[in-house]
Every structure is written in C-alpha cells, then in structure tokens.
C-alpha cells in the first residue's frame, strides 16, 4: 500500500496535481501535514478535505463481517492424535532449547503439507527458509516414508522433494529481503506453507545487545511481511525460535527459567506459540501451548521417531 502511486489508484486531476508537486505515493499523501499540501497544491481547505475523502474512500480496506470471515477460513494442518493445529493466515511459532525437536517439527510438517487435502494435508508445496543449514532432505524422505507408507511410494517421494523449496539465508537483512520476494514463488509453485527455521539465528548473530532497537525494527518488518503473505494466500506460517536465559519479566509464559528469544516485540507479533521442552524424569517430551487466541494452555506429550514428531494420545 505504502509504495503505490496515486496516479494509478485514483486517476484524475487531483492525482496529477499531486504528482507535479512531488506527492507521488499513498504514503507521501498521508505523511505530509495538511497545511503543507494546501500550500504546495494551492487549493483551499475545503477542496483538500473533499479530495482526501474521495481518495481515502477508494483506498480503504473493504470491511467484512465476522460471519463472512468464518466461511473463508480454510483448512489447517493437525498433528495426528493431538489437538495441535497449524492454522492458515497466522504465524505459529515453535520455541525450545537446542535438540528438543524444532527442526523435526518443521520437517514433519513439510512431509504432511504435500499430502492431498483428503488425507489431512494441504496439497501443495512448502517454502523452507533455512537459516541454520539444518534442513536434511534425507530426513524428510525418511519421515515421509515411515509416516505415510501407503501414500509415499517412490514416485510420490520424488514429487514431495520437488515441492519443498529451500532458501538459505544466514543474515537478517537477507532473510527480510527473501521474504519480500516470495510472492512469485508462492503463486508459481502452488505453495501451501512457509517455514522459517530459525528466526532467531540470523537476528541474534547480526545484532548485538547495543543494537536491540534496530533488531526489533527488522523483526517487526519481517513479522508484518510474513503475516501479509499468510493472509493474502491463506497459508500457515511456521517459524522456530530459540530460548535464552535472559530477562523474564512480563512474558505471559509458563513460569520456566528459559524464555523465548527475540524479545517482547516479536512475542506480540506471533499469533500462536508452542513451547517444546524436555520433562525431567520422563521419557517423552512435552509440547505446551504457550500463547494462542483460540486454545487453552494445553500440554501434549510427544516423541521423536523415524516418522518424525509423534504425539502420544492422552
């Protein structure tokens, strides 16, 4: 929206006038104080007000009733034997210490996404943004073959591997740039899910503690772009995050000593947060719903097997 040109959106005398005075985009129009515009365009207050009214009416997002939105919400991915759902259109975050299964979670989801909708999948490809070089294609194949042996024969496996598009980015700005350019790939390759594994790695390595505000700014931009992609194409966005032993104050967490990295700004931006942790003294591991707009603080047991992440039935 910001960069779009007025001349194209609202063709006419007013736009031409603005263009001649260097007010080219929507953002220019909004950010200039009214008095400035009146001076520059040499029009009266009333004229400006009515012109702006027309402009805004054209550019405003069209409202939908909640009822209409209900129909539009499409299918989600659910891990079998659990209530863990990955919903489209929102950012789902998986947080945990090293080795707890975050990349396994992502790889399992990638294997599930290719399944047709009738089998519980999304029937399409996956964009896998790998920032830690931890994506293993052989592991993907192993999971797919063990989890859905009937569906994944050799031919299907080949198609599966063709449908996962991996992007390697190790720096924060690379990551943000990459996210910005995903539109084309999503449309061409019928992408049904975007995975970023992990979000924390490039941001924590590129920004030190003196540059936290810049880091938060880039994170917000990344979050905003990811949300936009998720909502425009109605696909789930899954990101992974690390933990840190840092400041704990304020996060609506489950009282653990380790908090999710990337700070509170990022925590606001994600819609759903799952926490993976090792339960001391128990064999299996625990997945906790740490933040969700539509679920209580449930916890699930899971283990990592050949077939990826297996949730235990309660």
């Amino acid at each position, binding site marked *: 929206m910001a960069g779009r040109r007025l001349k194209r959106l609202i063709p006419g005398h007013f736009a031409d006038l603005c263009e001649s005075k260097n007010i080219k985009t929507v953002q220019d129009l909004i950010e200039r104080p009214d008095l400035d515009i009146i001076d520059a365009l040499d029009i009266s207050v009333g004229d400006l007000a009515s012109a702006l009214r027309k402009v805004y009416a054209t550019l405003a997002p069209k409202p939908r009733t909640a009822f209409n939105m209900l129909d539009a919400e499409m299918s989600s991915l659910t891990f079998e034997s659990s209530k863990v759902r990955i919903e489209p259109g929102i950012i789902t975050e998986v947080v945990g210490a090293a080795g707890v299964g975050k990349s396994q979670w992502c790889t399992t989801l990638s294997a599930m996404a290719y399944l047709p909708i009738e089998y519980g999948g999304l029937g399409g490809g996956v964009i896998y943004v790998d920032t830690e070089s931890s994506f293993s294609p052989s592991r993907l194949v192993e999971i797919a073959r063990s989890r859905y042996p009937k569906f994944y024969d050799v031919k299907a496996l080949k198609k599966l591997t063709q449908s996962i598009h991996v992007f390697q980015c190790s720096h924060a700005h690379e990551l943000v740039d990459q996210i910005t350019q995903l539109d084309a790939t999503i449309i061409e390759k019928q992408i049904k899910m975007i995975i970023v594994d992990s979000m924390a790695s490039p941001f924590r390595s590129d920004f030190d503690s003196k540059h936290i505000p810049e880091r938060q700014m880039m994170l917000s931009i990344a979050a905003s772009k990811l949300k936009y992609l998720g909502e425009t194409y109605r696909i789930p966005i899954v990101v992974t995050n690390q933990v840190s032993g840092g400041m704990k104050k304020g996060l609506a967490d489950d009282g653990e000593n380790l908090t999710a990295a990337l700070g*509170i700004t990022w925590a606001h931006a994600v819609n759903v947060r799952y926490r993976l942790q090792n339960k001391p003294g128990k064999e299996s591991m625990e997945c906790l719903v740490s933040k969700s707009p539509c679920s209580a603080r449930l916890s699930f047991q899971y283990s990592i097997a050949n077939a990826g992440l297996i949730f235990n039935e309660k």
Partner: protein
Amino acid sequence: PLSKSKIALLKDRGFETRKEIAEISPSALAKELQIPPEEALKIWKTAKYGDDCDEKSIVTLSSSSSNSGVSALDLLAKKVKLRPIFSLCRELDQMLGNGIPMGEITEFCGVPGAGKTQLGMQLSCTVQIPKLLGGTGGQAVYIDTEGSFIARRAKQIAEGVNRHLVHIASSSSEPKFVEAARTLTVEKMLKNIFCFRAYDHNEQIICVEVLEEFIKKHPRVKLIVMDSVAFHFRYGFSEKYQLRNMLLKKMEHILQHLAQKHNLAVVLMNQVTTRIKSNIADIVPALGPTWAHACTNRIMFEVKNDSRYAILVKSSSHKAKTIEYIVNADGIRDVCIVGNVSNRSSARSESPSSLARKKRRTDEYR
C-alpha cells in the same frame, strides 16, 4: 431598537457605522463609551445581529449564537443516558464504573497472551446485547492490524455470550426477556461485527479516516476496536519520531471526535515494551509518553504465575484498582472463588439479579 440617547453617545464617540461597533469586543466598547458592560453588550449585539431584532430576540440570540459551552449538568444527564458496554466480567466492568464508557477512548495494554484480542472480540459481541436486557444494542467495528481476529474464536465467544444471556433471561420471569435473548443468535452477532484489516500504518490511518462515512451509513455502530494500535507504528519510523507522533495524533483526534460526536466507545489495544532505567527492566505501554495522553482510561493487563490481573492506571473518574480475571472457552470472565481454592477453569456467570440490578442502576438516572 437603540434609544436616541445611546445613538447620540455613539456618534459623539466617533462610531459611524455598525461595523465599527461590532468589530471591537463588548468590554472595549464599554470602556470607550464609559458605560457598564451589560449595556455595552446590548449595543454590541444590536450592531452585530441587525436592526430588526427587538430586545427579546437579542436575548434568545445570545444563548444560541454565542458559545457559552455546555453546562456540566447537561453533560451529566447525557452521560448517564448512555449505557456503557458490559464485558461480562463483572470486576472489569465495575473498575470502570459500570462497563466500557461511551464517548471515551479506553486503552488496554498488556503482554502478549494476556487476552487483549479476546476482550476485543468479546466486547464486539456484548455491545450487541439488546437494550431490553440492559445493553447497548449496537454494532461493532474491528480494525485488525495484526491479523489476530480469528472468526472461529469469535464464534466461540459469541456462543458464550448467547448462552449467558439465555441463562439470565430464563431465570427471570419475563417472556420478553427470553425472546430478546433468543433473537441475538450467534449468526446475528457475527454479522454485526465489521472487520477492517490494515496491513500497514497507511491503511490503518485510512481506515480511521473513512470511519466517519461508514458510521453515517451504519448508525448502529457503538464500538470501535483497534487491535492493535501499536503494531504498525513500531517499525519504519527510526529517526522519524516526530512524524510518528503527528500521525498518531491525527488518528487520536479523529477517534476522539467520533467517540464524542456519535456517542460510541473506542477501545484501543496497545502493546508493551521494555524500558531499561538504571539497570531495572520495566514493562511499559508502547508508543511512548506522548501517546499516553490519547486515551481517557488505560488498563494494564499483567500475567503472574498463571494468574491474570487487570490494573486501572489512568481514569478521569475512577480510582486505581487491580482485579483478577480468567480467559476460558467463553472468553474473559471473573475468577470464580468456590470453596477454598479459586477455581480458575470455570466461569462465574452473571447472576440474574445482578444483571437486572445493572439495568435498574442505569434506569435510575432517567
């Protein structure tokens, strides 16, 4: 209408035309003519408003065309006529008087996961409670900047509200209450929530600008929720804080105007940020101290060890207070204290007598 002596006096002091008299203030005229201010005022008004009005109409003109403000009594009468929006969490409502007040901007800040979006969705449903049951009977506008409005969850919350109303209405003996509760179906509630999705700060501002027109076409709108106001303003403005403040002020101005002109409630959700002062990290509302002036009332949500608290930190008419609340399948509710242990998983529904009491309370002032 002026006496001959007055006209002579005016001529004597050099006043030739009516315009000359009208262009100075009554007190200056009084000084020049050496007459008491009340007489000067009469002359001034005559000069300003025309020869052909007589004494009586001058007096009536005074009260309508000069701006002497609205009396506090009128304001009070207007305020008690406007029903606040119940949230169905009694403690929260009582903290603000009787509910979310009309004509004011109320801001809710809190850590992620505290329940702000839940409250926003819940209020979008409770604003629709029929007038017969003590509610506002209005519609809601939901400006979503983060994509957190999930229709499926809104439906769940609407179901909770509907259950609550039907339960209360059935326990009363009035069939018309039951009827009113039944007619507010889940489908109807969802159809009365208008969602605008703003993907960046430009769209957010444009949304607010077009609300005036929208409300003219939908006069039943009594609630505007913006969730969250902060998200898009927290990036893209490095080194441009003045610009950010100007844009925020613009938005605040329009929302304030809408709240007062159309007697509706504006509810803003804000994020929090960490402020480090002498090595102590504090959680403060986002968008800075300049923005803090925008809201009339501000409530902070906090989460400590699985318990959720709401703290009233700013209000022009109620004192600071902390209450506890829970979020369950039905949305935000009071904590239910049953027996020895506070049972956080169940909700305390509003008893029929208390809802009727609320209705009576708002009726009392009529």
